[in-house]
């Protein structure tokens, strides 16, 4: 997941470099160096990102079952099908519920971790690494651990063992849709996997807040603790927070692995990507409808991101100068 999660942010990088170059004055061979360093990345981007995107848009206008080189042009029929598909529309609701849970909790949790780790006077590197490590675990492996040992439905599952100390009966976390305990499994899994990464971002930002601000505040009578956090730390973290929330939202849109692995043969809790996977790669192999869904989803992500940028002011820094 991490590849696609971060790609959106990675893209502007080469462009930015090229803009900066002329101002610094060209030295001989620097153009060559530029292409040498960005070339492989750009080629990869074109071959693995832009061509598939283009192809997918092309496919979305064709009747493409069991083939990726279709000949039967159908116009917007696939789009009508996708936009009237109850399952697809439900998946957008599922996503919204999921994002409403996961984005604030991860934001708060990783910020909390960052504040704690940043306060440590010893073993800071150790704790930083420990909390960051889960980022390296694959979603599939983590899903299996969550499903088979922590949240399995039998009496010796970790969660059920803990509950049984308080006399609570076994809960089949994933098999039963009502009450929807499966959200607890899915949210905790993602929280564990990704909060370490965002914690590192927050730590970097925290360390960059000038000491003078705190000193000045202390002289002006600000109490340490909540007051300082609310009026100095939080505003100073604004840029990072915005970036983190943006990344979290995009990552939530791309959720697939844990849903696919945890909720086998369920009709509930299916986010858009799982729905598209079933459409394009299930029994029907309907690449046309699948691509149309993907395009719709991409546009939605773009709109939401732009809106969020507008509301939270992502990238407004330069203009306000």
């Amino acid at each position, binding site marked *: 997941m991490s590849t696609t999660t971060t790609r959106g*942010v990675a893209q502007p990088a080469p462009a930015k470099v090229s803009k900066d170059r002329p101002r610094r004055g060209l030295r001989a061979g620097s153009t060559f160096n530029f292409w040498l360093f960005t070339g492989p990345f750009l080629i990869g981007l074109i071959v693995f990102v832009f061509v598939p995107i283009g192809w997918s848009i092309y496919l979305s206008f064709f009747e493409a079952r*069991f083939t990726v080189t279709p000949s039967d042009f159908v116009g917007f029929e696939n789009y009508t099908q996708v936009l009237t598909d109850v399952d697809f529309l439900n998946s957008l609701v599922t996503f919204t519920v999921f994002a409403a849970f996961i984005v604030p909790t991860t934001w708060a949790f990783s910020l909390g971790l960052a504040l704690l780790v940043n306060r440590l006077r010893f073993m800071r590197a150790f704790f930083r690494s420990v909390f960051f490590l889960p980022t390296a675990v694959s979603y599939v492996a983590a899903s299996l651990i969550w499903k088979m040992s922590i949240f399995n439905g039998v009496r010796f599952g970790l969660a059920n063992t803990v509950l049984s100390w308080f006399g609570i009966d076994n809960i089949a976390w994933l098999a039963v849709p009502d009450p929807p305990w499966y959200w607890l499994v899915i949210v905790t899994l993602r929280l564990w996997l990704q909060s370490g990464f965002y914690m590192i971002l927050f730590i*970097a930002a925290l360390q960059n807040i000038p000491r003078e601000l705190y000193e000045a505040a202390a002289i002006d009578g600000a109490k340490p603790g909540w007051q300082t956090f609310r009026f100095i730390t939080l*505003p100073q973290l604004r840029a990072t927070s915005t970036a983190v929330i943006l990344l979290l939202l995009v990552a939530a849109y791309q959720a697939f692995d844990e849903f696919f692995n945890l909720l*086998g043969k369920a009709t509930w809790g299916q986010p858009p990507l799982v729905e598209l996977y079933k459409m394009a*790669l299930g029994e029907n192999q309907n690449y046309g409808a699948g691509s149309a869904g993907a395009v719709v989803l991409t546009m939605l992500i773009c709109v939401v991101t732009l809106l969020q940028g507008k509301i939270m002011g992502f990238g407004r820094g330069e203009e306000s100068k």
Partner: protein
Amino acid sequence: MSALSNSNWDRRNVLRAAMGLAAVGGLAACGGNTGRSSGGSGDALVQYFHAYGEAGTEQAIKKYAKAYKGANVTTQWITGSNFEQKLFAALLTKNAPDVFEFHPQIQLIKSGQVADLTDIIAPVKDDFNQADITSHTVDGKIYGVRMIDDPQFFFYRPSLFAKAKVEVPTTLEELIEAAAKLKTAKIKGAYLGNDLTPVQNNLIWSAGADTLTADNKPAFNTDEVAAGLKQLRTLFTSGDLLLGAPTDWWDPSAFIQGLTAIQWCGMWAMPAMIEALGDDIGIFPFPKVGSAGKQSVTNGGWSMFVNAKGDNVDAAKEYVKWLWIDQKEYQEDWATSYGFHIPPRTSLAQSATKLQTGLPAEGVKLFNEFGHFDNIGWTQAMISSVNDVMANSVRKDDDPKAQLDACEKKVDTELKKLFG
């Protein structure tokens, strides 16, 4: 110091981290072993198998392949619970397997995906279980070689039944009652798989209905089936059912570990169960649903197919003939040395001593008496739509009749595509 410089510094770091991750991810995506040897020889074959649970099965399949002199056969052992999705996706690509195991489904034949194997089966056709020939035949042509027949039924612990004073259930009501009586603080009453889909066909059959009629019309949407779904829903919500077990229904672990008194499983699991529980094992078919019903057993199994769109159709057919028609010793080894399966060849089934006595013999009896074989017209898309019925009307509380109606509509669409 302005806040602006801080935010710039942050963003650059974000970008750096992001680019690093993207680069690493890109590299990882380039990997991938197709299982094909790089040589240009036309006699390199790839075969797909789903991962059998029993120890030694993967080695056995590779051993047979190695013994074949006609071609260099590589085996792809596909783990995970979605073999059919991986197979269907692979069949579309250039890395498609030449030979693969699957169940007979007509869409593979209509789309020209699997090769006609009539010529290699014809000489020994009479030695096959005729039901297995019928289930692989379309318009007089036979499209797959059955390797093993796998009857699926309930396993139970007679000692626990005696303790709870429970008789072997013959109706769904009795099964639900039995599960309630058998349940204790440590042991659940019954296990029908984590998503209950393994018994979906049996629910239909035991209610006196069928998946399709003889002329391929939907036959499962009856009031009896709807009533059966409702009963199953009461079992699901009773708390007597084992749910969320770490291993699914096809694995005997839940039964062996004493998590459940009854488990829906297949004959393949018998050796492991007998080793763990001795003779404290009994079996019974899926009970009657409603008054008009009849007990039922799923006669599943796996067959070999040849990819008709591959580059090596003749070599692949030759290999399938060698192993699954000619090499009776390997066929018997495959059917009885790991898990227990019934050989589809009558001559082998009769000589397989391991299946002649005790529990396996009872399994064979249920197979013959109550078994329903694969229906080639019942395809994966139809199976999935019944999966949704199970999810919506048993695990969720939707109206069974409405769900069956919706399912019938989907099945009808599929049937129209296949039969016009």
